[in-house]
């Protein structure tokens, strides 16, 4: 069932089966209801409505085993907590538990007590287990049930190294989200961003990465050089970003495996605003020559001559590839103020797509291809989306300064950073979904800016 068009915006969010009040023993289906009751589903792009109650009890272990990541029973409790947290943070679910729910036994994982769960108000139920395998790996089982239909909706098993146990939890949450919304998953992914400390005139900025929920946080640079605007490579092995090392703002690629970094393209000129192409082969970037800024691309593997893509007087920057790599969206002030333009990947067919009041900046093409996110500057700085043709503009946030959207892997959630006013104004990382109603701050150990959401982990 596709609910991704804007035309569906007015639809109610939860398409819960109207037949759920049927008695379990009832054998006759209403003639108008078809052969099966309507499915338990959640609408991601729908209007304002109550989130779906979903029970997530602690996950038992068949045998308590001590692993390098901890005891399997403790891991089962933590996996359930992560699943509940992911679902809650999507804004589409109100998880019950895991704290406060009765313990379930290992055999009950595949034989839920529907009578009990039906009395809790939960419409869906997640159960699972954590088991240590003889080869040292973990198996995390993940089951989703429709409480009223008393039926299993999906089951998944994830075999992971103990150190990757959190990924298994995110994958479990992803399978539930995908099954109930019809959307692609996104929890099992990472964020690159800039960690910030210090006063605004002496800001120390460090490259950092974390899981999509803020866990497994890691600093990659020490703050001696100002760094900005990171982006993951599609395979997560590299990060391209701007560094002021040697007091020359240039684009570098950081290799996460080796910790080494290299200049992407040698130039006496400032290079900035780097983005990987969807296939990882190219770096799209901006270069300023004598006060004029244009878009270029160069091989991401080093070597080769940069190819100039724009040559109009003005500042052309913020380039972002369409997911199929055939087009580029970018911002340019060639008409006066910043506006959004789309062109073919070779620089041809440049055309302006933003025509509303104010200025438009930092365009980012959704990984689904259906929308372009941007910063709109008209008084406040606000995050918005429009179609690649410029139609259907919608603003999702309204704060003093929200900037630089980045898309979740499934193109349904946007992260950005929010700057506070004045001397003590902090930068913090936030996310909002496409309804604009589910907005929350992403916890980071320091202040944060320039978030960049990577694809679903390979």
């Amino acid at each position, binding site marked *: 069932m596709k609910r991704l068009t804007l035309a569906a915006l007015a639809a109610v969010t939860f398409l819960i089966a109207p037949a759920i009040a049927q008695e379990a023993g009832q054998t006759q289906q209403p003639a108008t209801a078809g052969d099966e009751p309507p499915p338990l589903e959640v609408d991601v792009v729908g209007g304002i409505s109550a989130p779906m109650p979903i029970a997530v009890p602690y996950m038992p272990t068949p045998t308590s085993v001590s692993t390098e990541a901890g005891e399997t029973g403790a891991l089962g409790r933590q996996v359930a907590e992560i699943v509940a947290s992911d679902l809650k943070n999507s804004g589409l679910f109100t998880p019950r538990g895991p704290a406060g729910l009765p313990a379930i036994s290992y055999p009950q994982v595949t034989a839920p007590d529907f009578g009990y769960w039906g009395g809790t108000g939960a419409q869906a139920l997640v159960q699972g287990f954590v088991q240590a395998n003889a080869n040292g790996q973990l198996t995390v089982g993940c089951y989703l049930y429709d409480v009223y239909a008393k039926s299993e909706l999906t089951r998944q098993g994830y075999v992971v190294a103990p150190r990757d146990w959190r990924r298994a939890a995110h994958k479990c949450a992803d399978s539930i989200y995908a099954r109930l919304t019809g959307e692609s998953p996104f929890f099992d992914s990472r964020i690159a961003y800039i960690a910030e400390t210090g*006063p*605004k*005139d*002496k*800001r120390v*900025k460090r490259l950092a990465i974390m899981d999509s929920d803020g866990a497994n946080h890691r600093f990659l640079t020490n703050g001696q050089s*100002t760094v*900005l*605007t990171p982006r993951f490579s599609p395979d997560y092995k590299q990060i391209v970003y*701007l560094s*002021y090392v040697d*007091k*020359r*703002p240039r684009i570098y690629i950081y290799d996460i495996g080796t910790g080494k970094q290299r200049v992407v393209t040698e130039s006496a000129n*400032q290079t*900035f*605003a780097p983005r990987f192409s969807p296939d990882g082969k190219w770096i799209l970037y*901006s270069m*300023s020559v*004598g*006060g*004029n*800024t244009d878009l270029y691309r160069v091989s991401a593997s080093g070597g080769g001559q940069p190819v100039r893509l724009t040559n109009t007087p003005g*500042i052309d*920057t*913020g380039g972002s590839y369409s997911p199929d790599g055939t087009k580029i969206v970018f*911002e340019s*002030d060639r008409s006066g*103020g*910043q506006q959004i333009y789309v062109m073919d990947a070779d620089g041809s067919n440049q055309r302006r797509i933003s025509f509303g009041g104010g200025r438009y*900046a*930092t365009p980012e093409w959704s990984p689904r291809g259906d929308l372009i996110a941007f*910063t709109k*500057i008209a008084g406040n*700085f606000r995050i918005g989306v429009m179609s690649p043709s410029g139609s259907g503009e919608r603003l999702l946030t309204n704060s003093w*300064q929200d*900037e*630089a959207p980045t898309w979740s892997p499934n193109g349904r959630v946007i992260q950005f950073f929010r*700057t506070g*006013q*004045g*001397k003590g*104004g902090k930068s913090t990382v936030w996310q909002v979904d496409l309804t604009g109603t589910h907005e929350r701050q992403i916890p980071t150990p320091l202040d944060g*800016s*320039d978030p960049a959401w990577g694809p679903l982990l390979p």
Partner: protein
Amino acid sequence: MMKQNGLKIAVIALGLTATACAPKPKDLPPPPGGTGDAGTTTGDDTGGVGQTVVPGSRADFLQKVASDRILFETDSYTVDAEDRAILDSQAAWLLANPTVTVTIEGHADERGTREYNLGLGDRRANAAKNYLASRGVPESRMTTISWGKERPVALGSDESAWAQNRRAVTVIPQ
């Protein structure tokens, strides 16, 4: 103050006394000493003024020129008459000290997006550089760097702070 003397000399030389009194946002006083510095990473360290100055040093430059910086209107990189008077005094000093190389920093206020502001800072640095070159300073002695909105000198979120931050600063090595 020496800086005011320098400004007066430059203004008289160009016959621009009228514009010097215009109540534009750009005419705001410089930030109080010691609070507007951007540390060692940018050229806003004005320390050393008032002590014994070495000819050709940063302190010498800061004493002799009308100002080490020019200020810009919002989203603009236009060098106006007042800016030209300041840059004329810088050019005179640079021509009198022909071995000194300079870095011209371009900056933007916080009310722009980060990457655009990097381009805007580059425009402003180059606007100052191009004017100095037109007054005879060899381009080979001037490099530019854009800091975008990364290194404000005034930390407020108001028009007076933003006006001070929209700047191109000519930086002499310490």
